[in-house]
């Protein structure tokens, strides 16, 4: 049996090797289908990475919850109490707590969104630092506030002294630019330490918008909302807290898109099967005499069938391997071309699992496309051929 199978494979290989155009045509459709399959999967993974990266920067890491704080003197005090309480609860558990106070202001006369931060914001939104450094964590607040820029600020660079204007404040706050980040937010934003802003204003006017953010490690998913709910009840802040990261929604959208594209790749694979079937049946007419000769020289029906289906499977596997190699070289280039401005995609992963599945599915497609010609070849009546 092994001898028969190996002999049939040698015959299949000989036929493929000596009919280059036919082999090429057989391989072409399946190679395109496998290439589409691998590229679609790779592209969807890259797109997922890109969108997730975007979502992480603008909304926060997975399992980030927010408790909004209404403006007003009492609420500002309660917000800072809530921050202290949440930090006390969460710090030992690895959670990150941040109190944000936002207001629309100006810097050197240019409108900006001012975000005052208490806590390590980059542990929740990991902005890449494009120059300089991030805000100092802790320590004595400076009269000259530290400022980190994001977005376009023509003519301002690290080390420059600037003046931040805030609505309701008669004077401007002197500040020093220490770095810049890319927060992916539209428009210009400056980040400052909240304790340094509090030296100038208590942030209680209606122009300010405050929020308490809490991120927990993903393995403790769901706890952050309950902790913030508890903190809100203790600090008498209005609730309820809401989850603000959109990663779940993004993942669902990506999964749907990926499924649609994989279906398209599947249809391409079906077209490939039909192509193999068509070429197999057409070439069979030309090979009737060859098959009769092989039968006359001792080939059984099984061996003839194996050699014909073996041709299709070998061609399909070869085309799939070729497509995977092409994809392997193409994916990084295509990914960086499609998503040139996403610094979070430092290395594009190749979908090895999909590539393996593509090769296996291609082999199966070769089998399906070759089985009917194989059955026809195996059932050829050699006596009638030899009489002709």
């Amino acid at each position, binding site marked *: 049996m*092994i*001898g*028969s199978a*190996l*002999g*049939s494979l*040698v*015959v299949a290989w*000989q*036929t493929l090797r*000596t*009919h280059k155009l036919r082999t090429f045509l057989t391989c072409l459709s399946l190679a395109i289908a496998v290439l589409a399959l691998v590229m679609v999967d790779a592209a969807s993974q890259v797109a997922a990475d890109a969108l997730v990266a975007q979502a992480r920067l603008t909304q926060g890491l997975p399992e980030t919850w927010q408790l909004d704080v209404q403006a007003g003197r009492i609420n500002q005090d309660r917000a800072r109490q809530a921050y202290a309480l949440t930090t006390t609860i969460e710090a030992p558990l690895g959670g990150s707590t941040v109190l944000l106070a936002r207001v629309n202001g100006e810097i050197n006369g240019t409108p900006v969104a001012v975000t005052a931060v208490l806590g390590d914001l980059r542990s929740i939104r990991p902005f890449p630092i494009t120059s300089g450094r991030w805000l100092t964590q802790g320590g004595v607040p400076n009269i000259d506030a530290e400022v980190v820029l994001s977005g376009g600020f023509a003519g301002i660079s690290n080390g420059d002294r600037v003046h931040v204007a805030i609505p309701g404040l008669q004077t401007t706050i002197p500040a020093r630019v220490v770095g810049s980040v890319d927060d992916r937010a539209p428009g210009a934003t400056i980040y400052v330490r909240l304790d340094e802003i509090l030296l100038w204003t208590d942030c209680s006017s209606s122009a300010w918008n405050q929020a308490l953010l809490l991120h927990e490690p993903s393995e403790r998913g769901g706890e952050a909302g309950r902790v913030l709910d508890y903190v809100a009840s203790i600090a008498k802040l209005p609730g309820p807290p809401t989850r603000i990261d959109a990663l779940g929604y993004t993942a669902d959208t990506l999964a749907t898109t990926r499924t649609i594209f994989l279906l398209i790749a599947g249809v391409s694979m079906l077209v490939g099967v039909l192509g193999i079937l068509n070429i197999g049946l057409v070439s069979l007419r030309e090979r009737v*005499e*060859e098959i009769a*000769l*092989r*039968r*006359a*020289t*001792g*080939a*059984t*029906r*099984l*061996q003839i069938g194996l050699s014909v289906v073996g041709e299709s499977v070998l061609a399909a596997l070869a085309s799939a391997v070729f497509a995977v190699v092409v994809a392997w070289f193409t994916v990084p280039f295509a990914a960086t071309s499609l998503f040139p401005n996403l610094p979070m995609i430092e290395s594009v992963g190749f979908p090895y699992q999909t590539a393996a599945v593509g090769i296996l599915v291609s082999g199966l497609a070769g089998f399906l496309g070759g089985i009917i010609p194989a059955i026809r070849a195996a059932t050829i009546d*050699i*006596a009638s051929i*030899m*009489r002709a």
Partner: protein
Amino acid sequence: MIRASGLCKAFRAVAEERVSVLRGVDLAVAAGSSVAILGRSGSGKSTLLSILGLIETVDGGTYELNGKDVSRLSDSEAARVRGERLGFVFQRSLLLPHLTAAENVEVPLLHAGALILPRTRRQLVAAAMSRVGIGHRAKHKPSQLSGGEQQLVALARALVRQPRLILADEPTGNLDPSTGERIVRTLAELPSDGLTSVVMVTHDHELATLLDHRYVLTDGRLGVVS
């Protein structure tokens, strides 16, 4: 070697009418002998050869090969016997145009069922091609060979598995007389090893004299040529 008795074969023609081609053929071929079967076109020579080659089944009679009745074998058993014990030479060489001469000769070895290593296959191919004097054309494609050379390659293909019976169906039909004679002389020399037998169908009486025994097929029956 071969003992056939009462072989009958009929084909269905138009309007359900059956045409009897063989009507009780008796034939015995000893090991190490060669036989020519003569007859007019349509007399049933090729049908008889197809039956002896287990390509065609018989309607009646018995056919023994090396003492074993092979007239009622299954399809796969018949294929195995064809591969192991029989070698065919057809009127047309039926070489596969996309393969070299050596690869054409190798064809029966690839269907042997048992695993034959590539090195062994190469040795057997070289031996068969040398035996018929065509070894120097091993790497040529059929289109690069003359008609006589193609037929010699076909003969080497028939010999490569060292069968005990060579069946040749008008092997000189497409060749000029001198080349045809060379082919038949090569065939006629094969039984000199005392093991191989040759049955050749031809309508050429002169070439038939090169073989040990001559029979003529007339009206579906075999008679001895005096």
